């Protein structure tokens, strides 16, 4: 099915099941521990041996010699995989660095060996006996020092690194009010709950991987490519995923080395990354340096806006597209954005929840707060004045498919009690706390991708949906069941959803907040095909047929779906593809974040008191799971504002604080009441679901609202994230 004209009224509009805040259908299994995660598939792969990864002790250089004798002789050791015996491995299309290093070392903690043993303890102990002599080379690890060597990176998802419209320089120099500021954001680690984990088993030349992966088809492709085997020989099974945030978009070392280990020792092998290995072995969100310039009139109306971003990555890597939102969020005839990428020999930078916007808005939305103060305009009002209903780079011929930023700003401000904010910083005291409010716009691009599904109904009227879509804790199972139930007019309880298996039709997968809309649209397409088959079986014209209460109706006639399915059942498969509506219309999700913080007058400790937001993201398929996504993302935004940072040791070239005791993310005590309001919106240009993504929108701008609240509370502006006590104290003493 192709979606190339705006959606008309369709079965989803009934809203009988879709749009209901239904509990997760997989929730009970998860909270009772009966949903098996990859590392626990003892049932499917009995007798698995244990692999332990040895990571490089240097960031750049070569392995001069590897002495495996002691490790090989250690108790229980079955085999050791290294570059010397792994056979030819081709780097995956989605990988920047090789997943198995050696002799060349590309980054610290790059896997250089897998020790396979009969128990986890034996594998880990033997791994410590692998002796490696390195010849280190000097590397580049300091973004601030290397930024000037940045070059124009390749296009990202089809968008160029640099854009411009009008005459920024001229307009900026003429502007009555000029803001120019520099902001920095550090490297972030995904820190999802479940570490990367896989079990691999070979049957002849066929490989099965039980793994934890967001993108089944991408990863099947890269497993096949890396090992040099046909895709048809790779089966990936990833039905339950304990969080990913982008860390599990790609084939990673756990899966590849499990496959290599299993091949070497001739039995299934399981591999999980230990928590302290994750930050340096896997991908992370790259640090950025951002420069923002805004020229406005005295009322804050923007005429010129520029956002430049510097980030680093390994050779062949990609830039953090932190200026992305600045292309679309605010008006201004004269504008430019630019990204520069410099070479760093740190671990691989890549996508983490809302790549681009998550850190871009940490800068842009603080800049807007600063502009509001310069112009003496309320920050909410400033954003309303600068709203634009079309792509401001392309002009009015490219309108937004739907854009309710202003509605979000107004409704969010009302609910939060924004009118009680005192614009002048440092005015509100509560005991030893200075209290302030801040806000920020939320913006995240909307992407939709081709997604397929298979749907069947049996003689009991049970509906089964199969797609290789993944549920990374987001609620995919539930919204897919809701979609199928809506389309076929059956109760939700009658739908079984099977996900995350490469034998199922290829879906869009989970990433870039495209999963919910795309995957349910794929189910919509398959369900339409099944409706046609059912109508044909009933002898009804499909366009006139109605589906409800387990029946297909035509006027006064009706037939039971179960009866039509017959003993063999009826199946249909289709996918949803997209035309050029995303070119003709800018498609994005919007929102407004509000935050109240207290700043301790003595110690500069920051405590968030309230967070609230209003969001417009098309049809909300399930308000309960959508709210969970948004509050989780707001929490992550609070983390980015206040504590999250991988500390780079520029001498050794690694992230020093590589465990969860030292890489801090918010705990319950950091996060108070969070209020989420969804603004009614149907986007008929996004898909037949009229939905958009919502999984990443909540992080976008959340941290800036915290930063702006700190400024309003205490008059302290820290532009280098995270805003920690040491920086606030230094700002105060400056």
């Amino acid at each position, binding site marked *: 099915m192709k979606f190339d004209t705006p959606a008309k009224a369709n079965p989803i509009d009934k809203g009988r099941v879709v749009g209901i805040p239904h509990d997760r259908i997989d929730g009970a299994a998860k909270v009772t521990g009966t949903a098996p995660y990859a590392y626990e598939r003892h049932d499917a792969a009995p007798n698995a041996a244990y692999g332990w990864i040895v990571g490089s*002790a240097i960031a750049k250089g070569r392995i001069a010699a590897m002495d495996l004798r002691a490790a090989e002789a250690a*108790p229980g050791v079955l085999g050791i995989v290294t570059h010397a015996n792994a056979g030819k491995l081709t780097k995956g299309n989605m990988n920047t660095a090789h997943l198995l290093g050696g002799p060349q070392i590309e980054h610290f903690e790059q896997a250089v060996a897998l020790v396979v043993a009969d128990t986890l*303890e034996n594998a*880990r*102990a033997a791994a*410590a006996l692998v002796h490696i002599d390195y010849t280190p080379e000097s590397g580049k690890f300091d973004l601030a020092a290397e930024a000037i060597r940045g070059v124009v990176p390749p296009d990202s998802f089809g968008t160029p690194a640099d854009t411009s419209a009008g005459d920024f320089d001229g307009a900026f120099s003429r502007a009555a009010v000029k803001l120019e500021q520099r902001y920095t954001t550090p490297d972030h680690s995904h820190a999802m709950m479940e570490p990367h984990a896989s079990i691999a088993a070979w049957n002849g030349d066929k490989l099965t991987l039980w793994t934890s992966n967001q993108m089944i088809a991408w990863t099947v492709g890269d497993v096949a490519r890396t090992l040099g085997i046909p895709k048809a020989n790779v089966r990936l099974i990833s039905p339950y995923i304990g969080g990913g945030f982008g860390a599990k978009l790609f084939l990673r070392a756990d899966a590849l080395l499990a496959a290599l280990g299993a091949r070497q020792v001739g039995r299934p092998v399981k591999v999980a990354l*230990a928590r*302290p290995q994750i930050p340096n072995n896997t991908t992370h969100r790259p640090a950025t340096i951002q420069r923002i310039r805004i020229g406005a009139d005295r009322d804050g109306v923007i005429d010129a806006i520029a956002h430049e971003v510097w980030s680093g990555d390994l050779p062949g890597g990609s830039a953090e597209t932190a200026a992305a939102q600045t292309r679309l969020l605010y008006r201004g005839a004269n504008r430019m954005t630019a990204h520069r990428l410099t070479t760093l020999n740190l671990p691989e930078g890549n996508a983490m929840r809302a790549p681009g916007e998550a850190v871009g808005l940490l800068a842009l939305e603080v800049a807007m707060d600063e502009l509001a103060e310069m112009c003496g305009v309320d920050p909410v009002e400033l954003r309303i004045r600068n709203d634009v209903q079309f792509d401001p780079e392309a002009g009015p011929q490219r309108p937004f498919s739907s854009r309710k930023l202003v509605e979000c700003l107004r409704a969010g401000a009302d609910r939060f009690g924004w009118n009680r904010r005192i614009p002048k910083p440092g005015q509100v005291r509560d005991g*030893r706390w200075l209290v302030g409010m801040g806000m920020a716009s939320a913006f995240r691009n909307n992407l939709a991708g081709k997604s397929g599904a298979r749907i069947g109904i049996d003689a009991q009227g049970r509906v089964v949906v199969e797609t290789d879509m993944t549920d990374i804790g987001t609620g995919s199972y539930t919204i897919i069941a809701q979609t199928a139930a809506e389309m076929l007019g059956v109760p939700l309880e009658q739908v079984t959803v099977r996900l995350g298996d490469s034998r199922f039709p290829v879906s869009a997968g989970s990433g870039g907040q495209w999963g919910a809309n795309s995957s349910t649209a794929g189910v919509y397409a398959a369900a339409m095909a099944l409706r046609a088959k059912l109508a044909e079986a009933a002898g009804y014209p499909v366009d006139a047929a109605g589906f409800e209460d387990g029946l297909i109706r035509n006027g006064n006639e009706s037939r039971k779906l179960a009866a039509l399915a017959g003993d063999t059942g009826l199946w249909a498969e289709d996918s949803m593809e997209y035309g050029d509506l995303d070119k003709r219309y800018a498609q994005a999700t919007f929102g407004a974040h509000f935050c109240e913080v207290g700043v*301790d007058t*003595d*110690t*500069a*400790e920051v*405590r968030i008191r309230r967070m609230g937001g209003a969001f417009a993201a098309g049809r909300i398929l399930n308000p309960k799971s959508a709210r969970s996504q948004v509050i989780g993302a707001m929490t992550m935004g609070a983390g980015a504002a*206040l*504590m999250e940072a991988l*500390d780079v*040791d520029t*001498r*050794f070239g690694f992230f*020093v*604080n*590589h*465990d969860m*005791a*030292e890489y*801090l993310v*918010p*705990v*319950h*005590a*950091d996060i108070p009441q969070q209020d989420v309001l969804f603004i009614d919106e149907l986007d008929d240009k996004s898909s037949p679901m009229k939905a958009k993504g919502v999984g990443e929108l909540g992080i976008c701008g959340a941290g800036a609202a915290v930063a702006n609240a700190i400024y309003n509370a205490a008059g302290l502006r820290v532009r280098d994230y995270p805003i*920690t*006590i*040491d920086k606030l*104290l*230094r700002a105060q*003493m400056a």
Partner: protein
Amino acid sequence: MKSFTYERAASVEAAAKAAASVQGARFIAGGTNLIDLMKLQIETPTHLVDVNHLGLDRIERTTEGGLRIGALVRNTDLAADKTVRRDYAVLSRALVAGASGQLRNKATTGGNLLQRTRCPYFYDTRMPCNKRKPGTGCGAMEGMSRSLAILGVSDACIAQHPSDMAVAMRLLDAQVDTMDADGVARSIPIADFYLLPGDTPNRETVLKQGELITSVTLPKPVGGTHVYRKVRDRASYAFALVSVGAIFGEDGTARFAFGGIGARPWRTQAADAAAPHGARAVTDAVLADARTTPHNDFKKPLVERILASLYRQQEERA
């Protein structure tokens, strides 16, 4: 983790003997620190002597009117003890400011005193660290040292002692009661219990091989207002950047002990003596010999600000 042998000791004496007679033996209590370090091969004991079943889990009054806390009393139980909450409130407050509920359920009084530093270079066996591997150098001094100590540090090591509980123990003039392999008991004032790093940061306490902590004894209550203020990077479940335990007397006197800034739980006579002169005076006294890095120099103003805040609170109370 290296493989090791394990035994469950039958008595205090037997535990001490067993630990002294096997090269590389260690006691295991709650295991919340030791096992983590073993997994990372930072600690590689050959033999573990489990001291969980020796009846060292009681809290009793001493004849001197103080309190004897068994070495195996869990942090949760100690924090919740009625006498502790009434007479030694700073201890209870320090305990609940540490770690998480789950960890405190396992962590013990003796183990808490002996928990090792949180220096990130200590935690990565590929990095130089004089404490972990004497003579390899200090990774932190020129590296990321934001959380590390500014007092009692040496050219070899600037690691902080991470315990909250030990700060309160230091403030309360606790004694560490031990028994050695020969069955000899001794009581070590906590002021003398921890060694400064000097040239041998790998040596952290005066305990001898096999010497078992049996209890920690508190002298009779000193009264006053007990406070524990811990400043950290998030609201809970993080080690202190700076913490201050204080007991304010009725008469303008006070005593202070500090966490997060010292190579050991920090307390000085000079700081206590300066108490009547206010926060600035106490700060000057305690930080006179402070040695900072560009990453952790903020701890100095933070000490003063916490003290100022505590003084203000105390005035408001009065």
